[in-house]
Structures are given as C-alpha cells and as structure tokens.
C-alpha cells in the first residue's frame, strides 16, 4: 500500500462516537458537544487535500517502483534488476564493439537494427512480465485491500489505469534502455546521425507499442487470479506458447509449404510477431519473424489488430475491476 499523503484528522461529529452517550459524570449530552474525549489537543489538518489525480499518481509511482523491487525487500530486487542487466548487456557489448571497430574503419552499422532488439530478447521480457505483473495486481486481490483504495476519492477506473500504466511503463523502461545504449554507442562511433536518430525514434515508438500490448495482455491475465504463482504460469504460458506455436507454424507453412502469405497472417496470433508486423509496415523495419505481414493491406490489419488488443485488454481490465471486491 502506498504511503498516504496526509493523515486522517480527528473530526468530531456531533452525537457520533462512543463518547457521546456514555460520559461517566452523568452529563445528558443534550447540549451541543463542543469537544469530545478524543480531542487531546492535537492540531487538525486544515491544508489543501489532494484529490483523485494525486492518489492515482501516487498509486502509479508506487507500483512502478514495485515493478523493479524499489521500496521492497532486497530479495525482490534481484530478479527485476537481474533481468534488466541481462537485457542491457548485449546492447552494451554491441555498442562497445561498434565503437572499437568503427575507429578502425571496420564497421559502419550496428550489428542489430534497433527495431529487432526487443524481439530477439523476447524471452527476457516475457519472464519480466510474468514475474512482475502478478506482483502488481495479485496482492490486492488476495488480501482484499481494494475497498481500502476505493474508500478514498479514487475511482475503479483510476485504479485500473494506475496499475496497467505502471506495468506498461516498467516494461517500456526495460525495452527502451538498451536502445538508448545502442544509440549512444552509434553516436560515439560516429555513424550517420540523421539516419540513426530516425531509426532510434521509430524503435522507441515500437517499444512503446510492445509495452502496451504485452502489459495489456499480462495485467488482464494477472487480474483474473489472486494466486501469484498461477498468474505467473498463465502469463508465461500465453506469451511463450503463442510464440512457439506461431514460429513453428510459420516455419511449416512458409518454408516447407512455400506459402509466405498464409505464414504472414499467422503472425497475428502472437503478441511479439503482431507488433513486429506493425513495425515492418509502419516504420519500414526489417521483420524478425519468419514471414512479415502480407503486403500493405496486411500491415494495416496488423496495426488495427494491435490497437484492438490494446483497447480490448484495457476495457476488459476495467470491467474486471468493476466487479471485483465490491
């Protein structure tokens, strides 16, 4: 639970509270009570009260910190920071190699384009989401603490926005940091600035799409169960199994049967290949899947499905929180 921004003041209400009717000296209580037994001289809070937005922001920041184990025990920092390091290490190595080799004139491009980085290291992202998304939502469900949040001027929608936003931002940080490392490496290596800046910005947009799609699906799955372990298993099953199924099907249909159009359409069915297809169509990236989206119309369908997945998973999440813990 986040720190409350202020303390609840003792506000005596006339006639309420146990003290009003049971005063020991036999006072009738008919006179308007000017003070009550609880008032022991502390000053009440008369300052400005932070409203709905501030509570939602506090919840967002708290959950974003929680994604990386900040403000939690040392043990819960190990996994997120370990995965963060695993995610950034290849970028760091590639950037260093690029800088060294560029000085000797042996290299004029990064070994891996920015837009493919997230797809190549998708296992890391999948584990990060599986481990951290249930941590954000399942404890409130398990210990039934949601009514405590809702007793404040916080709406159910705000709660859902704060939770989903925190997970999406956490994943975006995980995906964007190695891109920044690669970009800085490219700048130091004095690769063409304009071209690299454009690619880098487009890859950041792609990372944002990845973050929205993946976190939307993951938070929705995690919000369905109060058991953290089951949430972890369910998320990773969806992410890993869809990837494995799609890549196996694309391999068979595309390469063995030679039907690249059908293989392209199969890419719709896994989050990673879906967003990868949007990158190929909208940003002109090179496809990481066995087959990219079929033609321009296909790319547009990929973009529409991506938007539908983001909007749909969020709408379902809001619906889920409208019913839960009333």
């Amino acid at each position, binding site marked *: 639970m986040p720190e409350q921004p202020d303390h609840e003041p003792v506000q005596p209400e006339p006639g309420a509270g146990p003290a009003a009717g049971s005063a020991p000296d036999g006072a009738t209580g008919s006179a308007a009570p000017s003070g009550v037994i609880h008032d022991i001289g502390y000053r009440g809070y008369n300052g400005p009260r932070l409203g709905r937005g501030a509570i939602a922001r506090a919840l967002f920041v708290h959950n974003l910190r929680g994604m990386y184990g900040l403000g939690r025990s040392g*043990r819960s920092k190990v996994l997120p920071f370990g995965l963060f390091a695993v995610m950034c290490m290849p970028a760091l190595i590639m950037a260093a190699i690029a800088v060294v080799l560029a000085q000797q004139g042996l290299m004029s491009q990064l070994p891996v384009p920015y837009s493919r980085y997230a797809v190549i290291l998708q*296992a890391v992202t999948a584990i990060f989401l599986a481990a951290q998304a249930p941590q954000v939502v399942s404890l409130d469900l398990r210990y039934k603490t949601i009514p405590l949040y809702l007793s404040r001027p916080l709406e159910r929608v705000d709660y859902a926005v704060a939770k989903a936003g925190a997970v999406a931002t956490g994943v975006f940080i995980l995906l964007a940091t190695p891109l920044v490392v690669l970009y800085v490496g490219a700048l130091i290596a004095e690769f063409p600035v304009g071209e690299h800046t454009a690619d880098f910005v487009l890859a950041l947009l792609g990372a944002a799409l990845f973050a929205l799609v993946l976190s939307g699906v993951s938070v929705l799955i995690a919000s369905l169960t109060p058991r953290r372990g089951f949430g972890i298993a369910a998320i*990773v*099953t969806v992410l890993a*199994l869809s990837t*494995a199924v799609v890549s*196996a*099907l694309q*391999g068979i249909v595309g390469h*063995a049967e030679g039907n690249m159009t059908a293989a392209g359409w199969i890419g719709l069915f896994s989050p990673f290949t879906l967003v990868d297809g949007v990158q190929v169509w909208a940003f002109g990236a090179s496809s990481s899947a066995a087959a990219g989206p079929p033609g321009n119309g296909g790319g547009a369908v990929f973009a529409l499905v991506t938007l539908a997945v983001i909007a749909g998973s969020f709408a379902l999440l809001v619906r889920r929180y409208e019913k839960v813990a009333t």
Partner: protein
Amino acid sequence: MLNPTIVRLTAHGLLGGRRLLVLGSLSLLIVALAVLLQVFAGVNEADAADFLQGVSFGTLLPLFGLIIGTGVIGSEIDDGSIVYVLAKPVSRAVIVRSKLAVAVVAMVLFAVVPTILAALIMAGNTPGLAMAFGAGAVVAGIVYSVIFLLLAIVTRHAVIFGLVYALGWESLVGSFVPGARELSVQQWALSIIDAVETDGFVTAHVDLGVAIVLSVVVIGLFTWLAGRRLAAMTLSTEE
C-alpha cells in the same frame, strides 16, 4: 506406497475450479493446431516432427511441468495448509510420492496424450513416430514433474526460478550450447525419440545411454531429496 487421501486432495486442488478448463483448453489447442495443419497445409512427417519438437517439447512440456509440478504442492505451502498434511502420521516420502503420482498422471493426460494425438493426426501413416514421441513425452513429463516438485519444496519462489530454468536453460542454452545439452531434459527426450523411431526425423545430440541414466538418476535422486527436504521443512512466513 501411496496415500489415497493425499492423492485425492492433491488431484482436487490441482484440477479443481478453472484450472482444469485452462489446462484442458491448452492441450486441446495443440490437437486443434495439428488438425488445422493437416487439413490446410497437408504436412509430411518431417514437418510434423519439427512442429512437435518446437511446440510440444520446447514449450508445452516444460511449461506444463512447471504449472503441474509446482501446483501439486506449491499452493499448499503458499497458503499454509501443508501443515495439516504434515501433522498426520504419514511418512513425508509417502506424501511426496503421492503428490508426484498425481503430477505424473496429470502430465500424461494434459501433455503426453495431446502430443501423441497430434502426432497421429499429422503423421498417421507412420505410427512409429507417434509412439516415439509418446515415449519421449512420458520421460520428459516425469522428469519435469520431479524437478519442479522439488523446486516448489525448496523455495517459495519456485515458479519464477522454474520459469528462468524452463525458458532460459531448456529453450536457449539447451538449444545452442553443445555442452549444456547433456543436462537438458528436452535433449534426453529427443534422444529417446531418436532411438525409438528409425526414420531419422529427429536428430539427438545426447547419447541414449547418457539420457536414460541421467533421467533415472534425476527421477530417483530428486524424489528422495524432495522427501528429505519435506521432512526437514521449517514452516516460516517470508515477505
């Protein structure tokens, strides 16, 4: 050997409620994909072998092993109800064996049978292939159940560690680093498949003898270790 009451309770806990639906629909998915591939793409035996290797052995078996292996005991340890089982005059080794039996039966039902069905659908003309994949899947299912059951007893974060193992070790390291293949359950299973089927659709990287010996050693040793750990378990609440 087994305690019927513990078996019944474990089966109820593992498959009660929505879990049965989730696990069942995932296994149906594999069969449905096999049907779709057969109808629309007309796959041959080599494609079928590739598909089963990537989807069933690369992903389905490790993940189901993770869910089922930790599921038979992890949730009881999590919510503390394991105390009521441990307080009974039942040997801890019997508890472990009972839970393991449930896990293995569940693995066979939800992962091995769909694999065999998918193989029969896609390569019905060569029933040897389905038999080989079935044999490999049974071995992998048992070994995964034992590994993840032990993991669930050793640590409360079994699912996360298991995940890093299943995705990191089995999928990445086991596929690329030659030396690590000797210690990859997936490669043991592939070695057994390679030995049973004779047409060479699957190439194994590990010797059959090594695979069998290591599988048996892991099953025996880890079951014994799980019993020991459960006997010496301290009940504490972390975090």
